[in-house]
């Protein structure tokens, strides 16, 4: 078999894009290698067959449809980046006034964001705050309701019936300037390749990954990065998988809006108090053979879909804390005391009623996971009801549980 560097030269030859030096190398190669000559002949033939494909033409004049669409549905005004030429034509004092106004607005926004941020909580509240129903877009279901489960997981708290999904808005053309930018992301880095598992999602079809985490060290917190064509589809799969395990996904409002508008977005999902086994089960049931046929079809069609698993690094924790708007120390995994958070080595009398109540509350509280937009937009945690709800609902870590961060990234981004 020809070495890759030679086959690369041959394909570039077929492309007609060789330098003079490369052309000489190809000529020498063809002189001495029958295999190279044979491959080149086949590649050239394939290229000719592609070139010979008939030219297709639309059966109808598309200009009629386009003009009709323009007439029926006036498009929103064009968004153009501020042009320097225009600024030059404005008087100087206007530019200064605009700059001052922007600075004032930014300062006010920062002040409001800080002043409305949830106070640091060393001790989470005993009573979970009641979240009032909201008719805004924040409560619009972004995923269709799931069919009833055959063996539903018993819920500790009654779950209100899910509202019927609203019809999705017609897909808007995606703004080109709004695409995810890799430079924007911190989660891109893999810190230790030796402690990292990279798996194509197609491999999940086979018997190989019965245990995803078995080849990895036991981490107190895991980071899973899913690269796939459409993070929104992956999020839908995860939504169902989390739900099956009694974990409710709380989706930040900005993320909901992007899901509803079908805008290309990378997302972050963060959960606590899940066991390593649950992490495996979540990923496998969301993406593996157990996933529904419809969803698996999507994965099979996406050759770039892969998952990267490793431990959560300090830099990841810092980034996550920024997304949640909290101090990174609050995300440090703490050592669980004992089941229910009660220190069984001490007599009960030494423990406060509050601690016991908190422990019992933790046992019964609903487990939440938060979904945040990551790229090209980020959440505004101080203004996000969903982030607040998630933080208010945080519980003491139970023994054997881990933190789980999942980054859903579009492979085209």
């Amino acid at each position, binding site marked *: 078999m020809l070495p890759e560097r030679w*086959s*690369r030269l041959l*394909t*570039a030859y*077929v*492309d007609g*894009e060789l330098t003079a030096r490369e052309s000489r190398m190809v000529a020498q190669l063809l002189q001495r290698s029958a295999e190279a000559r044979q491959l080149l002949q*086949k*590649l050239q033939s*394939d*290229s000719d*067959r*592609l*070139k*010979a*494909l*008939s*030219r*297709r*033409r*639309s*059966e*109808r*004049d*598309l*200009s*009629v*449809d*386009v*003009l009709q*669409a*323009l*007439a029926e549905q006036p*498009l*929103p005004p*064009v*968004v*153009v*980046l501020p042009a320097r030429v225009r600024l030059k034509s404005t008087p100087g004092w206007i530019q200064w006034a605009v700059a001052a106004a922007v600075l004032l607005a930014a300062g006010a926004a920062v002040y409001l964001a800080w002043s409305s941020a949830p106070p640091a909580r060393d001790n989470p509240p005993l009573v979970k705050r009641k979240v009032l129903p909201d008719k805004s877009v924040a409560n619009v279901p972004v995923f269709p309701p799931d069919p009833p489960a055959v063996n539903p997981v018993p819920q500790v708290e009654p779950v209100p019936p899910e509202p019927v999904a609203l019809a999705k808005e017609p*897909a808007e*053309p*995606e703004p*080109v300037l709004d695409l995810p930018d890799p430079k924007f992301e911190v989660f891109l880095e893999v810190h230790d390749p030796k402690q990292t598992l990279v798996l194509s999602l197609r491999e999940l079809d086979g018997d190989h990954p019965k245990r995803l985490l078995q080849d990895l060290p036991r981490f107190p917190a895991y980071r899973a990065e899913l690269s796939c*064509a*459409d993070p929104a*589809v992956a999020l839908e799969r995860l939504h169902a998988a989390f739900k099956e395990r009694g974990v409710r996904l709380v989706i930040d409002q900005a993320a909901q809006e992007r899901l509803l508008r*079908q805008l*290309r977005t990378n997302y972050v999902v963060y959960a606590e108090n899940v066991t390593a086994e649950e992490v495996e089960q979540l990923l496998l049931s969301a993406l593996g053979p157990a996933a529904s046929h*419809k969803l698996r*079809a*999507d994965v*099979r*069609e*996406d*050759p*770039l879909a892969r998952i990267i698993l490793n431990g959560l690094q300090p830099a990841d924790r810092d980034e996550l804390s920024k997304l949640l708007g909290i101090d990174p120390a609050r995300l440090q995994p703490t050592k669980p005391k004992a089941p229910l958070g009660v220190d069984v080595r001490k007599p009960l009398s030494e423990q406060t009623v509050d601690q016991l109540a908190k422990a019992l509350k933790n046992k019964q509280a609903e487990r939440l996971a938060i979904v945040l937009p990551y790229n090209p937009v980020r959440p505004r945690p101080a203004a996000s009801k969903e982030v607040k709800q998630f933080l208010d609902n945080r519980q003491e870590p139970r023994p054997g549980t881990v933190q789980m961060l999942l980054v859903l990234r579009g492979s*085209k981004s």
Partner: protein
Amino acid sequence: MSTDDQRLIAACRQGDTAAFGELVRRHQDRLYNVVYRLVGNAEDAQDVVQEAFLSAYQSLDGFKGDARFFTWLYRIAFNTAVSHKRRQRVIVSLDANRSRGGLPEPLDCSEETRPGYALEQADQERLVHEALQRLSPEHRAVLVLKDLEGQKYETMAEILQVPIGTIRSRLHRARLELRELLERLEA
């Protein structure tokens, strides 16, 4: 960029939608052919081309004129095709699975596939088309741009917004993968 395109774009910017209609007529056939090979069927190709033209109209003020209009239009169409493909993926995959069981169905009702057309040539075309559709979108895109459109690496890099080295590398893998697929389909 041709002076006709320049004139029509200027008219569009003044709000002349008829001028945009003329732009569509000038470029629709070429764009449709490329998109058809990308998305694999006539219906989707029409949707994507229409959507691409609407997107182009919407962002016409952002077109600086430093690239050719058609290159710019390509870029929009490729982005539109990718997102359209995502939305349609499940349906497409089910259709693809169904068609793999038997002979591929006629691709559309256009002139080339009507009864009476040289069968051998039609079969060859279907085979190549099917192989093309089984490639990943990235590989399909570079082959379409190179072999069907005869674009240079540099222009392809501009359209697909990736480095030239990536284009060359993708074409290398795409050609080898296409070879394998054709061998398998012909076996």
